[in-house]
């Protein structure tokens, strides 16, 4: 009877969770309803986790003697993992969000991989389909775990440069094939194959070791500018691993939640790759920085520097300004100063908009979050497709810490490595100001034709310092008038 009630309650709670997750994600489609969306999804999570303690009434007879220890372990793990991650998540700076998402993602992948390991070591899988699905889930989960850890290390600056060795792709392929082969051995041994050199559990260890190594090798060579794609793809991987784990455990809530996330991650991956005009395979398997060689002789003219205060005053008397922020703005921690400057322009009746490129930042949409954190209202923030036609009728485009996303070569120069990538048409504004740390090329090493165009002036310096000067210049103007 108790078993029956437990099953009923667990089933009900999981159903609620699956529904609330979808409903919550649906509410996330508008900034106005989004905060309630995550809370709704949170309720679903609490219900599912609380109900899963009822599994205690359904455990196998073999596990009964260990029940008290297992409960102790479960509560300890929930407290350490949950409370620890909660406090870190509350404290972490918004600029560090990509590496935070990467690490939480890796945790999910690791958990899914561990569940697969439990099923394999315990020999709980029934039939060949379940075994194959378990192995697949374990593989994807383990790759997601080690890959996300490397992604975190890169984003956090622990690993500074992409590590590229000759023959790396060959090594990657070899490790991948090895893990698949070991998976094949595990399946064969479950079918009663004999004469294998190791026991099944040794093979399982080798399998997970190969998968973890593959995740590391796959992520190491990928450059920082490609991180939006990598984070999205590991999000999809973890979702898939969780979904497959749900199939093995016969838990539809895990299956649904995992697959929804898998599809979401895939969609974001496709969007990011499209925004860089590259295929997903190209991001994962080629070294972008190494192949980017533009001919310096192709561009005529010089970069023309100008003074921060001159640029500020020009914007103060313009009627419309579009600001194109890039990762350099965040790197200089200048978002607050930028909004302070924008508020001065708004007070002077200048129309100001922000134009965001899909890959501005180190993960999809990061620049939007950073601007929101600085206090910029979201109705001033526009995405590429919505604002690109406005540049032609705008007085000033102010580019801060962005480079490749405003390079007109992407439209015109067929020989450029970024040809075909959708860009913000900042060059079409009547006047362009570029705030940049110094002369030299951007992250990808490509010469930016915009900097040499006749309507463009460069303001050299750290974005924070430049914006402070701009604020002073506009304020000084107000004082003089009074």
């Amino acid at each position, binding site marked *: 009877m108790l078993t*029956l009630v437990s*099953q009923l309650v667990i*089933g009900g709670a999981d159903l609620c969770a699956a529904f609330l997750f*979808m409903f*919550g*994600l*649906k509410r*996330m*489609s508008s900034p106005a309803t*989004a905060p309630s969306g*995550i809370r709704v999804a*949170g309720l679903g999570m609490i219900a599912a*986790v609380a109900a899963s*303690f009822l599994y205690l009434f359904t455990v*196998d007879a073999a*596990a009964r003697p*260990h029940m008290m220890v*297992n409960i102790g372990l479960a509560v300890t*793990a*929930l407290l350490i*993992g949950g409370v620890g*991650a909660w406090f870190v*998540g509350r404290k*972490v700076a918004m600029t560090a969000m990509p590496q935070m*998402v990467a690490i*939480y*993602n890796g945790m*999910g992948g690791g*958990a899914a991989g*561990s*569940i697969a390991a439990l099923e394999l*070591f*315990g020999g709980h899988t029934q039939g060949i389909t379940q075994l194959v699905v378990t192995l697949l889930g374990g593989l994807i989960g383990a790759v997601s775990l080690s890959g996300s850890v490397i992604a975190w290390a890169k984003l956090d600056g622990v690993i500074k440069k992409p590590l590229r060795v000759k023959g790396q792709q060959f090594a990657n392929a070899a490790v991948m094939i090895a893990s698949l082969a070991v998976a094949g051995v595990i399946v064969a041994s479950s079918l009663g194959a004999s004469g294998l050199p190791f026991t099944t559990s040794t093979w399982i260890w080798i399998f997970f070791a190969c998968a973890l190594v593959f995740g590391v090798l796959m992520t190491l060579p990928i450059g920082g500018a490609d991180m939006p794609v990598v984070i999205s793809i590991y999000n999809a991987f973890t*979702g898939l691993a*969780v*979904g497959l*784990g749900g199939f093995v*455990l016969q*838990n*539809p*809530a*895990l*299956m*649904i*939640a995992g*697959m929804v*996330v898998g599809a*979401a991650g895939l*969609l*974001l991956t496709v969007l990011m790759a499209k925004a860089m005009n590259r295929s997903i395979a190209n991001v994962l398997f080629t070294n972008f920085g190494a192949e980017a060689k533009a001919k310096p002789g192709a561009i005529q003219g010089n970069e023309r520097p100008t003074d921060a205060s001159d640029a500020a005053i020009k914007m103060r008397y313009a009627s419309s300004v579009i600001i194109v922020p890039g990762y350099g703005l965040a790197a200089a921690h200048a978002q607050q100063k930028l909004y302070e400057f924008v508020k001065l322009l708004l007070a002077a009746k200048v129309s100001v908009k922000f134009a965001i490129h899909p890959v501005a930042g180190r*993960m*999809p*949409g990061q620049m*939007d*979050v950073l601007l929101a*954190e600085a206090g910029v*209202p979201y*109705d001033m923030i526009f*995405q*590429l497709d919505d604002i690109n036609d406005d540049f032609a009728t705008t007085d000033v485009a102010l580019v801060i810490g962005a480079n490749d996303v405003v390079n007109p070569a992407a439209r015109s120069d067929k020989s450029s490595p970024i040809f075909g990538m959708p860009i913000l048409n900042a060059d079409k504004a009547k006047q362009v100001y570029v705030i940049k740390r110094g002369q030299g090329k951007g992250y990808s090493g490509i010469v930016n034709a915009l900097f040499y165009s006749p309507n463009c002036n460069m303001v050299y310096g750290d974005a924070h310092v430049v914006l402070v000067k701009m604020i002073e210049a506009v304020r000084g103007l107000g004082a003089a008038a009074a």
Partner: protein
Amino acid sequence: MNFDIAMTGFVALYIFTLAAFAGWVIIGNVPAILHTPLMSGSNFVHGIVVVGGLYGLFNATTPLEQAIGFFAVLLGAGNAAGGYAVTDRMLAMFKTSDAKPKAAHGHGHARVHHLKKS
């Protein structure tokens, strides 16, 4: 009577297909401005894996299984709690200019004023 849910091959495929489609459609409607919270939010959703970890840990019989189960619950709980914390924080930051009249610009705000007057 038994409330066990049995999902054999094709039923599982139906669930997977429909869930993937639902995810694609729901996420496809999210504007790019919310892509980071969306990603951390969907990150939070796959934290449900902690439920699978708890199931595995409760059924563990050997020290190895207990250790792996502990690891699964630890990571799953971190995934869920951390994902929630950062998503909630980010979403609380998105405000319209209506919320602060000082930055009054654009049609939306003008309309609000008009309504207040009349």
